[in-house]
């Protein structure tokens, strides 16, 4: 502290001068607590940094000189264009396309089933259902959302394939259905995303003000017209965002798909054959206890990185749609 700052008792303190805080234990404790809570909050940032660091060092560029990262061994071009994925064989190929194909076929089937049903359920709950029915149904949907994906995988394997798909497609249409097939995985995935779509879309639908609906009725619309031509377009951004989040969850879903669709990387669109998704590959590769440092082990990170980029992109897109196209009602 310089001499000029020491105010003599005669001269009043300058306007800009701060009050000096006296030290007290209470204040010290407050600061301590605040710092600890800040530490907790920044842990989530640390998690993100750790994820990024992990992918960068294991998949893109290794920091330690005596090890190489995945993309230092396999060129990005091969990774993206090779049509074969065979890390376990002697003739190794690392083309992500079969895994991407499996992922998108299964997520696509799931979306075709889950998105319309979820949206229809949301419209019913928000527009048609009595409050009592709604209150009863919400917990049921929550239970549906809380069922672990292992259980859905088991359900696909022991019920959907033998009692739904095989009678429908094998007996009637004469299409061979494998025990492990993309269709059953897609069906249970569809069921799994219904709660997500339903509750997020319902929130969006209920946020549409009454006035819009009443204006529709005043113009002579039926309830169907109001629901589908007024309320749904008004809540469009929320519905699209819920769809995107659901699809991103479907892409990242692991156990159900791994159990139901099997582990056969295949570049085809036939949903009745076994297929492997990115997530299923990661589980399968970890089961074999691949030693660290091998190319199979590093391929885990490359696949994980691809998955991470895709789901992150979809989540960001969903948030952007939500904010960009949101209709703000007073």
């Amino acid at each position, binding site marked *: 502290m310089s001499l000029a700052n020491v105010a003599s008792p005669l001269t009043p303190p300058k306007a800009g001068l701060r009050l000096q805080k006296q030290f007290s234990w*209470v204040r010290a404790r*407050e600061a301590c607590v605040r710092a600890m*809570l*800040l*530490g907790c*909050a920044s842990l*989530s*940032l640390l*998690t*993100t940094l750790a994820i990024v660091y*992990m992918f960068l060092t294991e998949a893109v560029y290794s920091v330690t000189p005596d090890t190489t990262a995945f993309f230092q061994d396999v060129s990005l071009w091969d990774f993206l264009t090779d049509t074969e994925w065979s890390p376990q064989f002697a003739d190794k190929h690392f083309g992500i396309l079969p895994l991407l194909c499996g992922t998108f076929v299964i997520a696509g089937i799931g979306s075709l089933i889950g998105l*319309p*049903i*979820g949206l*229809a359920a949301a419209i*019913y709950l928000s*527009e*048609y259902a009595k409050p009592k029915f709604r209150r009863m149904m919400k*917990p*049921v949907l*929550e*239970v*549906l959302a*809380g*069922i*672990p*994906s*292992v*259980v*859905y995988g*088991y*359900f696909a394997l*022991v*019920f959907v394939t033998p009692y739904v798909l095989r009678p429908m497609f094998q007996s009637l249409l004469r299409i061979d259905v494998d025990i492990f097939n993309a269709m059953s995985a897609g069906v249970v995935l569809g*069921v799994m995303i219904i*709660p997500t779509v339903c509750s997020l879309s319902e929130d969006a639908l209920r946020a549409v003000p009454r006035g819009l609906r009443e204006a529709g009725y005043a113009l002579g619309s*039926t*309830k*169907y*017209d109001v629901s589908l031509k007024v309320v749904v377009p008004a809540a469009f951004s929320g519905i699209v965002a819920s769809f995107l989040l659901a699809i*991103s969850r479907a892409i*990242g879903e*692991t*156990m159900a798909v791994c*159990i139901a669709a099997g582990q056969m990387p295949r570049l085809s669109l036939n949903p009745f054959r076994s297929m492997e998704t990115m*997530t299923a590959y*990661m*589980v399968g590769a*970890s089961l074999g206890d691949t030693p*660290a440092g091998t190319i199979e082990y590093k391929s885990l*990170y490359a696949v*994980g990185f691809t*998955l*991470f980029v895709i*789901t*992150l992109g*979809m*989540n*960001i897109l969903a*948030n952007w749609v939500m904010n960009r196209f949101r209709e703000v009602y007073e």
Partner: protein
Amino acid sequence: MSVPTKLQEPHLARRHRIGKAFEWVCCGSTWFGVVVLGVLLLSVGWKALTWPPAKAKPANNSTATVDAQSTSAPLSTKFFSSYDSRKPREAGILAAIWGSLWLIVLVALFSVPIGVGSAVYLEEYSNEGRLKRLIQVNLSNLAGVPSIVYALLGMTAFVKMFGFFTKDEGKSLVINLLFTTVDVPLPFDRTLISGALTLTLLVLPTVIVASQEALRAVPSSIRTASYALGATQWQTIRYQVVPAAMPGIMTGVILALSRAMGEAAPLMLIGALTYVAYTPGDITSVSDIFKNPHGLLDAPFDKFTALPLQIYQWINHPRAEYAHLAAAGIMVLLTILLLMNTFAIVIRHKFQKSTRW
């Protein structure tokens, strides 16, 4: 709605018919989930209560077959008191249940203080600045990261510790707790603590967001009243805001924990998928805790298995009996999850009724 007549508008009757059909479609969609849930429970439950039909057995071990047939169902009291076995009719989920229990307790111990602390910081301390926005955006993105990516992170950060320690060195950190010592292996390797930390990372975003919502619902008059009485900010939070938000926080935490309980993929990548015929810390009942209190400290560093993992292992087994064991395991898992969910719903209900503001 009035009965449509032709006088009003030529298409009105048709429009009403379309509307009625649409309503039925939507209603059907709502029930679809319930029906699937019912079919799922029935098919799994039926499998859990029956053994597969016995095939024709060679004559020499017919007595053994009869004995095996006499065990009533996969889901029996024996199922809870025995370890996994190569003989399906003697297999049980003792190790899995204790593993899951330990996981949940550890995840709760880690995630509740950190999660609630983060939420308190974000809601009570940070002003609307760049840091808060950054953390918020980061949280919403973390919530959307697939569990398998967390699994990779757990494998890298906890099981292998980014390669900073290697398993062969056999390093360990000995923590002295006055009366006893804890031997912490470095890296953590495939132990309970790795699994618990991974699941903690997985559920943290959920816990934080739920706690934030609960804190936000506490009216500011509570805070100002506390300040007016001379309380400091921490005292206000500690004695007024957090207790008032407790039911909401509890609901969020229980739902997050029930999600952690059902997750198999992260544990799988950590490599917990092994044959385990012991419980963590060799604790198989409450009385064991008093007999061997040090087991409590050793348990987090034991290898483990958990319910969803055990179920996956049985599903993957080619023998038909194991599919029925898996069903029995699923029934146990679903019962526990249902109880947790019901508990959360009950808390929320009570909270909604007894709100003071």
